[in-house]
């Protein structure tokens, strides 16, 4: 009790000065609603944080435009900023500036550990069916590259279905976007 507690409480006072780094730290705590092993920061979907006079503006890119988790993510970010005592503004950026290449190395590793094969690197041209059918995608369970494409589409817009011939495990592959 005493001085230390007063100090800790200061940050939560509405209108207190919020630093950009604090906002990034808070955003790291928001899990992806559909794949909660990774955070929104690890997914790379938060493009910019701009702090000005107790007002926090976040630029955010949806993975897929039809992603139903978009509103949930937006609300979660607004709540986190409000908890810091700042006024949130989340702008959805719908251009081509985000790609699956922006998923951080930690994010990719967490995806793999949870049984989702991370996306292949983006190329200048769009991926082709023959590339997806190639046996170069690594099974997240046994590491084998003897895998085959089962369906371009999966349970969410961002995933395809593959099957590992070595360990006979079906798995989900992040689409390269």
């Amino acid at each position: 009790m005493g001085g230390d507690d007063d100090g800790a409480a200061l940050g939560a006072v509405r209108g207190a000065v919020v630093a950009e780094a604090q906002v990034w730290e808070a955003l790291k705590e928001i899990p992806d609603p559909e794949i909660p092993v990774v955070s929104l920061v690890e997914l790379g979907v938060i493009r910019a944080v701009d702090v000005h006079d107790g007002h926090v503006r976040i630029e955010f890119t949806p993975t897929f435009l039809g992603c139903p988790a978009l509103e949930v993510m937006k609300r979660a970010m607004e709540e986190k900023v409000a908890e810091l005592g700042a006024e949130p503004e989340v702008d959805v950026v719908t251009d081509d500036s985000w790609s699956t290449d922006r998923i951080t190395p930690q994010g990719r590793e967490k995806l793999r550990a949870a049984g989702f094969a991370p996306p292949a690197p983006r190329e200048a041209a769009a991926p082709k069916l023959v590339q997806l059918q190639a046996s170069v995608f690594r099974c997240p369970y046994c590491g084998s590259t003897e895998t085959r494409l089962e369906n371009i589409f999966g349970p969410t817009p961002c995933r395809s279905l593959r099957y590992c011939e070595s360990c006979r495990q079906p798995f989900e592959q992040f689409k390269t976007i």
Partner: protein
Amino acid sequence: MNEQALLGLADDELVLGWRDSEWTGIAPLLEEDVAFSSIAQNEIGHARAVYELIVGADGDADALALDREPEEYRCAPLVELHLLDWAHTIARRWLYEVADEIRITALKEDPDAATAGLAAKIDREEAYHRMHAEMWHERLREEPCFRQAVEELWPYALGVLPAELRGELVERVGLVEVEPIDRGGHTEELALLWEEMTMVRRSAPSGAQW
């Protein structure tokens, strides 16, 4: 691209998204059930993003999408058709994706940066729809019922694109150019789809709470 053309793109994606979603639960293969549901979800997401681009940050995209009368929609008759068999459904998907690729490629060069940026993002997602359509086209191209379906839908496919882009579609599809069934007019099927599509909106004008 002018606003009417953007509205045409958004309405195409919205209505085709609805039509594609009609296969959810009843597609002939489980894989296709998943594929059509996912494609439909993407198409409706594209429609939403384009409506939002048209109305701007303070506008009401839902109102634009759902508060118009059926005759006010700018979609091409191709996407309105209520198709009940797999050959026609795949023929439409393939024809639409070829036409849409030509349109989106042009839109990526739009002088308006927000429009061009959105077109580039849509293009990345559509690449997967094209793969799906091409895969089926490869498989069915020699089947008489599929060829017949493509020929039946061909005048409708031409109607997806403005006159200046049709030449490329003719080249890629390999059929002779005919009189297009153009956007502007509507099929009777649209009114029936509209009833279903706008039902929630009309029954809860102030917004449905889930």
